[in-house]
């Protein structure tokens, strides 16, 4: 299987879909890391380096969008959703301007840089802004299609990309639909609802559970907002137990979004897998192990969720 970091997919997709003269790409001195340098090489006149000034970048992007541009503002998730939160909230969210936030290096998989750069709250923050679309793609194919969908969507979009290379979970003929979850494998005993690089782990967990005689559904939620309530309600009704998995704090992310739907439609046990504390330095694989972001932990939690079924 092909392996690529979704930040590279971001850079590649900006080039692939960037011929539209209205598209401008902004970066805050991280173009080599966010991979917007690929767009810069292809369309130098429409690339704007903002220097290390994320707050200003978000508002300049708003000004460009207010003047008819499709403005991509790129930096690490920590600075896009964290440092510039209020700029995003007031100048992009409240105005509903056509700004696309390309947030790379999200989550604990940043690895060695440690807690200061491991943003584990961006989904919670961005999800709280009315009208903001939040996408966390699982692989290269999905990430590129997410960029295309963001260009076609009118209004603000937050895209969450990773630093770590991930295996493809989708095929080349994959059809991406904004706001629609994808059932990757059917099952009747429980459902694993995952996002981002945890989708691959969810599929592995399904195989582990097969050995125990359990038949588990796996759903990929790439668009965390607006959430696909139908696919979640259906999973609750048909499988009776849900485990969510994400590279994010337990508070406010995919798990919360799923629980909000389940509580309001068809209450069943929901176990949320995520982190509950700051990250730390280490190799991504070591961090996944320490923080429980593994197929084995997902499988354990599925069994716990099933045991809670009434």
């Amino acid at each position, binding site marked *: 299987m092909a392996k690529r970091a979704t930040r590279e997919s971001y850079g590649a997709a900006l080039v692939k879909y960037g011929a539209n003269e209205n598209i401008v790409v902004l970066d805050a001195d991280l173009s080599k890391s966010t991979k917007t340098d690929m767009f810069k090489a292809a369309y130098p006149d429409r690339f704007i380096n903002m220097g290390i*000034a994320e707050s*200003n970048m978000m508002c*300049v992007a708003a*000004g460009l969008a207010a*003047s*008819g541009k499709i403005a991509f503002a790129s930096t690490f998730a920590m600075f896009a959703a964290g440092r510039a939160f209020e*700029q995003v909230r007031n*100048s992009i969210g409240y105005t509903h301007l056509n700004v696309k936030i390309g947030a790379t290096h999200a989550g604990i998989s940043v690895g060695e840089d440690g807690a200061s750069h491991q943003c584990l709250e961006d989904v919670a923050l961005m999800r709280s802004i009315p009208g903001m679309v939040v996408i966390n793609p699982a692989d290269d194919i999905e990430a590129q299609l997410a960029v295309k969908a963001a260009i076609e969507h009118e209004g603000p979009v937050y895209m969450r990309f990773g630093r770590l290379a991930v295996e493809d979970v989708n095929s080349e003929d994959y059809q991406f639909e904004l706001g629609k979850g994808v059932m990757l494998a059917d099952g009747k005993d429980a459902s694993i609802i995952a996002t981002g690089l945890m989708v691959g782990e969810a599929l592995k967990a399904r195989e582990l559970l097969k050995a125990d005689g359990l038949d588990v559904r796996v759903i990929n939620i790439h668009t965390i907002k607006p959430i696909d309530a139908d696919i979640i309600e259906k999973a609750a009704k048909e499988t009776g137990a849900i485990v969510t998995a994400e590279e994010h704090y337990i508070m406010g992310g995919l798990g919360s979004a799923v629980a909000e739907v389940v509580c309001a439609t068809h209450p069943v046990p929901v176990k949320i897998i995520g982190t509950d504390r700051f990250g730390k330095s280490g190799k991504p694989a070591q961090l996944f192990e320490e923080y429980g972001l593994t197929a084995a932990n997902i499988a354990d939690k599925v069994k716990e969720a099933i045991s809670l079924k009434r």
Partner: protein
Amino acid sequence: MDKKRVKELSIIANKVRKNALTAVYSAASGHPGGSLSIADLLTLLYFEVMNVDPKNPKDENRDRFVLSKGHCAPALYGVLAEKGFFPVADIKGFRHIDSYLQGHPDMNKVPGVDMSTGSLGQGISVAGGMALAAKLDNKSYRVYSVLGDGELEEGQVWEQAMFAAHYKLDNLTAFVDNNGLQIDGDVSKVMNPNPIDEKFRAFGWHVIITDAHDFEKLLSAIEEAKATKGKPTVIIMKSVKGKNVSFMENNAGWHGSAPNKEQYEQAVSELDAKIAELEAMA
């Protein structure tokens, strides 16, 4: 500018002041002091300088205005109403639940408002983005933005100051409403932003210092800004907070509090007297 035009603009500016006070009085909340200090500038921009059309408020070739000190919405609404973007009578709805006139400017609700503002330091950055868009599209529209002198304490203003000079945004003109007062008192005592001129000069801007309440001087400063190539211009306007209402002038207490009925009526009668005096002039 001839004397007749100065007189006309002075009358409009005092009507804008009345509108601003009516808004704040009707809402029993809002920011009269800074609204009165920028009323002359906004009148000059909307009635003499900017290419805007109330019938086509979204014209893509229009000049843009961003009120970075968004709390002075009463002045902006006051001038937009006088210009015909919406009925003057609607001013009374300011900050009311059934009105489109939000407490701070809202581009999606109020005709003629080019950007939603209110959180200090952000508007000037957005104005820079608009100016950059004009450059990218080879369009000739200009972007104007008003900052408070207290607002200069926001670090983001200086991120934008660096940016606008770096990208040579000579189509951007910023104004500093230098009335010397912020909510907690004298700006130099709360958090001294001075020297404002030297700071902007050091960041690579063309700097002009002028009188906020002299139309001819203000207009010539704006003409100088238009003629300045390769760098943005900041016009530091020495202004009087609460201008033209005797008991509000130079009083920080009127930054964010509404007049009572008696005070409102006195303020209006002072402004009416000024208008009558101007109209009686030859």
